């Protein structure tokens, strides 16, 4: 506290001391206040829009998918009303209730198809298709099954002998009926009535798909039809979900734009002591050069149709770019621009003195569409494309001003919310029953200019690298 008169007088004078600032202060304050509000809106707007779009798309497609999977199968023969559509749970039941099948064959089917599910259709010729679904080891057993059924191919129906061959063992629909084998067996309508257990239809929850039914109908010798008087069987369709972790190692750089791939150039002197001095010979180089980038996060994939996925997640992404700079000049420079003029204290000119690495940390929300274009039993190859929204959470960076040919630091000039387009390839390999590993190149280009102020050059992030991840699957 002031001890005496001197302090008292001085305090009073200084308390009353008023000095009007220049008008530019309010302009800057006002601009920054509005900028701050605007900056928050796009990120949350884009985040919400992305989530809503993804949600709607997922819901819409899965609803459509559900409708498609409500299969209506019937036959149009005389006994249509009696037959209906039924499913049999396992081969044991099937064999015991089918007098036409010998004991040995029953045993064979039972042995070769433990715990299998069988699906029976009737067509207008009173044939019945029994779809045997084995979710575990049917592939291995398929040849054996074919042999087992080879002797069971001659059955009488309405005085006709229908010879059924192994071609009736049908595997339809790679995704839902990947491991299913359909055995076409001729039985009499009476047999069918005895053997078909309607109650087990619900128990089995066997997913039928429109495609698979059409596939069966297209088989030679099968005249399976979708009845005009449908007796629908609604199948509980559970969607395929995959989730896991992902990581990316890449190179990132700042370029002027994607169309001409020009990187803003910087001029530097050959002599470090006179760095930035235009009297000496100077070279032109890129203002920034690529540096390491990495990302890690979570990924969620939802199957939206055959071989098509929608994926999203949340990632932490670190980008960096390098710049060769000369001596740091501890002085003030005025940078005029159409938006507003600002001062920079302490800047560096391009040179050889040191390499500065600008670092940027973002939180990223990607929304990607992915489609398999090659698919085998254990592997698949797919492409992906989509967009992502990034929010800058921290940075330590240099901005390059081409007019003054200087690098300086002014974090408030960085655009915090960035909008990207992304594309890539992915090779996926099943590493277990319910999990897979994927790896592939990924490319991202930022549509947003990193620098807000148009007085500086235009800078857009690109990053290209290898992405890998581990996914858990669930139906």
């Amino acid at each position, binding site marked *: 506290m002031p001890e005496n008169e001197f302090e008292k007088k001085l305090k009073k004078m200084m308390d009353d001391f008023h000095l009007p600032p220049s008008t530019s202060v309010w302009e800057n304050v006002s601009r920054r206040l509005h900028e701050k509000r605007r900056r928050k809106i796009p990120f949350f707007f884009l985040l919400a829009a992305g989530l809503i779009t993804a949600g709607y798309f997922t819901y819409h497609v899965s609803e459509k998918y559900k409708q498609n999977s409500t299969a209506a199968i019937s036959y149009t023969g005389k006994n249509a009303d009696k037959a209906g559509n039924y499913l049999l749970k396992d081969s044991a039941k099937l064999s015991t209730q089918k007098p036409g099948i010998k004991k040995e064959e029953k045993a064979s089917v039972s042995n070769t198809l433990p715990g299998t599910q069988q699906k029976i259709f009737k067509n207008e010729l009173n044939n019945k298709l029994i779809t045997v679904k084995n979710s575990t080891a049917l592939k291995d057993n398929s040849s054996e099954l074919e042999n087992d059924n080879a002797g069971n191919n001659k059955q009488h129906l309405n005085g006709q002998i229908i010879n059924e061959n192994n071609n009736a063992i049908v595997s339809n629909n790679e995704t839902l009926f990947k491991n299913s084998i359909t055995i076409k067996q001729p039985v009499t309508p009476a047999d069918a009535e005895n053997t078909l257990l309607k109650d087990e239809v619900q128990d089995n929850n066997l997913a039928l798909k429109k495609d698979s039914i059409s596939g069966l109908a297209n088989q030679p010798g099968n005249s399976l039809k979708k009845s005009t008087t449908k007796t629908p069987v609604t199948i509980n369709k559970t969607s395929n979900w995959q989730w896991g972790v992902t990581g990316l190692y890449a190179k990132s750089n700042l370029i002027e734009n994607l169309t001409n791939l020009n990187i803003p150039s910087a001029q530097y002197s050959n002599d470090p002591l006179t760095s930035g001095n235009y009297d000496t010979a100077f070279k032109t180089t890129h203002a920034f050069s690529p540096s390491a980038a990495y990302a890690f996060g979570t990924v969620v994939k939802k199957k939206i149709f055959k071989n098509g996925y929608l994926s999203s997640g949340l990632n932490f992404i670190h980008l960096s770019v390098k710049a060769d700079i000369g001596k740091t000049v501890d002085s*003030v420079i005025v940078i005029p621009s159409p938006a507003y003029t600002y001062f920079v204290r302490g800047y560096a000119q391009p040179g050889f003195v040191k390499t500065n690495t600008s670092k940027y940390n973002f939180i990223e929300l990607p929304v990607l569409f992915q489609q398999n274009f090659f698919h085998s039993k254990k592997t698949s190859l797919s492409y992906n494309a989509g967009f992502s929204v990034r929010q800058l959470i921290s940075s330590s960076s240099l901005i390059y001003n081409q007019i003054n040919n200087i690098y300086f630091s002014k974090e408030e000039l960085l655009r915090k919310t960035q909008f990207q387009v992304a594309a890539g390839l992915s090779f996926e390999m099943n590493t277990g029953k319910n999990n897979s590993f994927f790896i592939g190149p990924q490319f991202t280009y930022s549509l947003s200019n990193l620098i807000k102020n148009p007085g500086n050059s235009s800078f857009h992030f690109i990053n290209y690298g290898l992405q890998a991840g581990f996914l858990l699957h669930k139906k």
Partner: protein
Amino acid sequence: MDYKNLVRNCLKGNAEAQKYLYNHFAASMFGVCYRYTKSVTDAEDVLQEGFIKVFNNLHRYRHEGELQAWMRRIMVNTALTYLKQNKHYSSELSYEEINLHPVSSENPVITLQAKELADLIRQLPTGCQTIFNLHAVEGYTHVEIGEMLGIHEGTSRSQYARARSIMVGWIEKRNENIKQRRYAGK
């Protein structure tokens, strides 16, 4: 003046209210910023940052004390942050303890205008200038200054003593010059 209503409108994002608040306090706040810095540009930078903080933290103002005093504290804190963050200040900022000598008991008559006095304060070494402002003008105790700047209380005292001594010397010298000019005029 009804500051409650003004603050409420500012919180709603009313640009007119924000401008009014700024215009009402800008000159007095700029006076504060001016004393802590060495140039008008720096003072304006501090003022700008300070007002951004004021508007962003206006919801924290509880209408318990004077709005001006609350804003003034923000300006002082912004100025201290600015001094630490800027190289050309941070290199000059030194709070080394110097030999403690008794605070000058001299109480020279201040014949200067407020602006001239502020300019004299700005000519003090940066460390002394900050402590002189905080103690003599803002009224913080040396204990509080020690906590604010992360220095020992004794350091604050010695720096203040040095700053006061310099200031008194300058003011007395100036008073003498004025006297001499008067005699010379007669």
